């Protein structure tokens, strides 16, 4: 099972012939991901490491049965690429590209959402289901198969926590980097909902950070809708208010959105919160070893 990507994933890479696209797609393929097609307008008929390239997503889907798209095209063209993928019937779009204008994504999101398409990202490391499929730039060697679902707004922090979990002998069902942009295709709640429904996942680790209110919404969702235990980590306790911390998701406005406020909201809804990556990994290990409660 796992979520979002798995053995059923037939991956199409938009921007396969680019430097980044070919590098990561090749790594994904080497991991075992079923990379079936690339799309670069004007390069139809070429091949990249044995993967056929098409001029349009539609042609690629028709020829290869691709069901998932990974977007690696430059920021100015990324929204267009997502529209094309959705129009061609792609069900899952994972957008790695960073730097896409927020207004572009606002329109993309509002178009894609009612169509039932799963959009992850943009500006995210992708989704890895260890042992099954890796779509994006997550270094798979850090992770191993298991039953902990991991969802995070942050790339390298996810690797850090995954690394700590793995060192404690805890494997993962899927690792989802949702990205930190103002408009992301999948929120914490969207991903938690899938982990709850995934029979392979027994425990979820959620990695949040300052800014926005998505962790607070997740806290309410966890209490109301989830039977599986969730352990959380929030980064940014020492971030000064009002300072920009690298991406838009990390702006503090007033008191709401602080790490403390998020931690308190989570704890109020019965979620245990670790204060550093090492502690959250230990908490997860503890809960995992205690077994899943009813």
């Amino acid at each position, binding site marked *: 099972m796992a979520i979002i990507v798995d053995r059923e994933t037939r991956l199409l890479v938009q921007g396969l012939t680019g430097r980044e696209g070919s590098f990561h797609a090749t790594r994904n393929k080497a991991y075992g991901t079923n990379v079936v097609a690339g799309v670069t307008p004007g390069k139809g008929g070429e091949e990249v490491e044995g993967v056929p390239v098409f001029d349009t997503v539609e042609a690629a889907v028709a020829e290869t049965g691709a069901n998932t798209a990974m977007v690696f095209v430059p920021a100015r063209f990324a929204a267009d690429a997502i529209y094309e993928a959705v129009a061609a019937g792609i069900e899952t779009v994972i957008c790695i590209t960073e730097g896409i204008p927020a207004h572009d994504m606002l329109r993309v999101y509002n178009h894609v959402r009612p169509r039932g398409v799963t959009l992850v990202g943009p500006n995210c490391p992708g989704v890895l289901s260890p042992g099954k499929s890796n779509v994006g730039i997550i*270094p798979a060697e850090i992770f191993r198969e298991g039953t902990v679902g991991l969802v*995070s707004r942050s790339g*390298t922090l996810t690797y*850090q926590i995954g690394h700590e979990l793995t060192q404690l002998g805890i494997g993962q069902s899927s690792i989802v980097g949702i990205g930190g942009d*103002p408009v992301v295709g999948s929120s914490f709640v969207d991903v938690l909902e899938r982990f709850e429904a995934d029979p392979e996942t027994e425990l979820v680790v959620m990695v949040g*950070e300052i800014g926005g209110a998505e962790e607070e919404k997740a806290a309410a969702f966890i209490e109301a809708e989830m039977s599986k235990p969730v352990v959380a980590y929030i980064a*940014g306790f*020492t971030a000064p208010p009002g300072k920009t911390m690298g991406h838009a998701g990390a702006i503090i406005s007033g008191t709401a959105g602080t790490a403390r406020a998020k931690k308190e909201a989570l704890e109020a809804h019965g979620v245990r919160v670790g204060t*550093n990556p090492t502690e959250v990994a230990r908490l997860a290990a503890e809960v995992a070893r205690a077994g899943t409660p009813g």
Partner: protein
Amino acid sequence: MAAAVDLYEYQGKQLFARAGIPVSEGRVAETPAEARTAAEELGGQVVVKAQVLVGGRGKAGGIKLADSPDEAEAYASDILGMDIRGHVVRRLWLERASEIAKEYYLSITFDRGEKKPLFMLTTQGGVDIEEVAAESPEALAKLHVDPLVGFQPWQARWLCFTAAIEDVGEQKQVAAIVENLYGAFVDFDAMLCEVNPLIVTPEGEVKALDSKFTVDDNALYRHPEVGEMRDVEAADPQERLAREKDVTYVKLDGEVGILGNGAGLVMSTLDVIDQVGGRPANFCDLGGGGDAEGVVAALEVITTDPQVKAILFNIFGGITRCDEVARGILEALERMTIEHPIVVRLDGTNAEEGRRLLAEASPANLHVEETMLSAAERVVELSR
């Protein structure tokens, strides 16, 4: 890279004027003499306003009403150079003084949860909007716009009626401003357009007395004129240097210089430093690249801060390759004289190779640690 460009009041007002939102006529001045000329040109009473990207200018004495060009010049020399909550005033905006009968508040922002633009309008303007939202939420009319449909006229009517703006003349003017503000928000890829206060004069004229305008910097390629407005001078000199080198750097108050890759990991590193008893000197994100060039640039920036006592590299390789970072550190140490003790922790892509490179070179002030926590403890110890 920062996520958004904050514009000064006068720049925001320029964009407002282009979008058809009424503002007072005014002039920019950078010297008292320019302020006098501006006051002469404008005529009558003028307001002299410090241009800083921080709130509370009025209370800090950064806004003065001048009755004459003489007074304008005098106030200008008081205000220029003033430090308002850490921001030095380098520019003034002088505009014709407005008589104020009523003060409203109008804004449009990005609602990240709903993924839609959000309008807010209240007749309780001129004050802190968070207070209004908290204390009298019923007075704050809030309305989302579907970004695919765009602004529709009923939305302006709804905002006016819901905020209980009852005068028909005001309704019409506010409705036009609401529509034009949406236009400005979309056309300039704004993250926030705020008018506080939106005033009504005794004659019933509605106009924007202040502006807060924030533009998505991912969209700056579509707005070269906004890119030019971006203020480089006003930022902290070190932050400016960092921006030139394309490194995200925010100065803090402690002794431990921190470099990492990825905003989340760096924030987490700050927290851990704090937890083990240290004080972070900065936030510094090398981003996804983290090649030698970037490392050198980041180290240059960090070491210009005299408070820094020790430096921590916390790198978890993904796209960033640890061997590249190791090479960058070694190159930086060759190119510049760094006396600070440096603690390095590498994990992820090519970490072994990176550690091997560092071990081979093993500069005297460089300490390699195995885990994030042990690295934090070590650097805090070295910063004392």
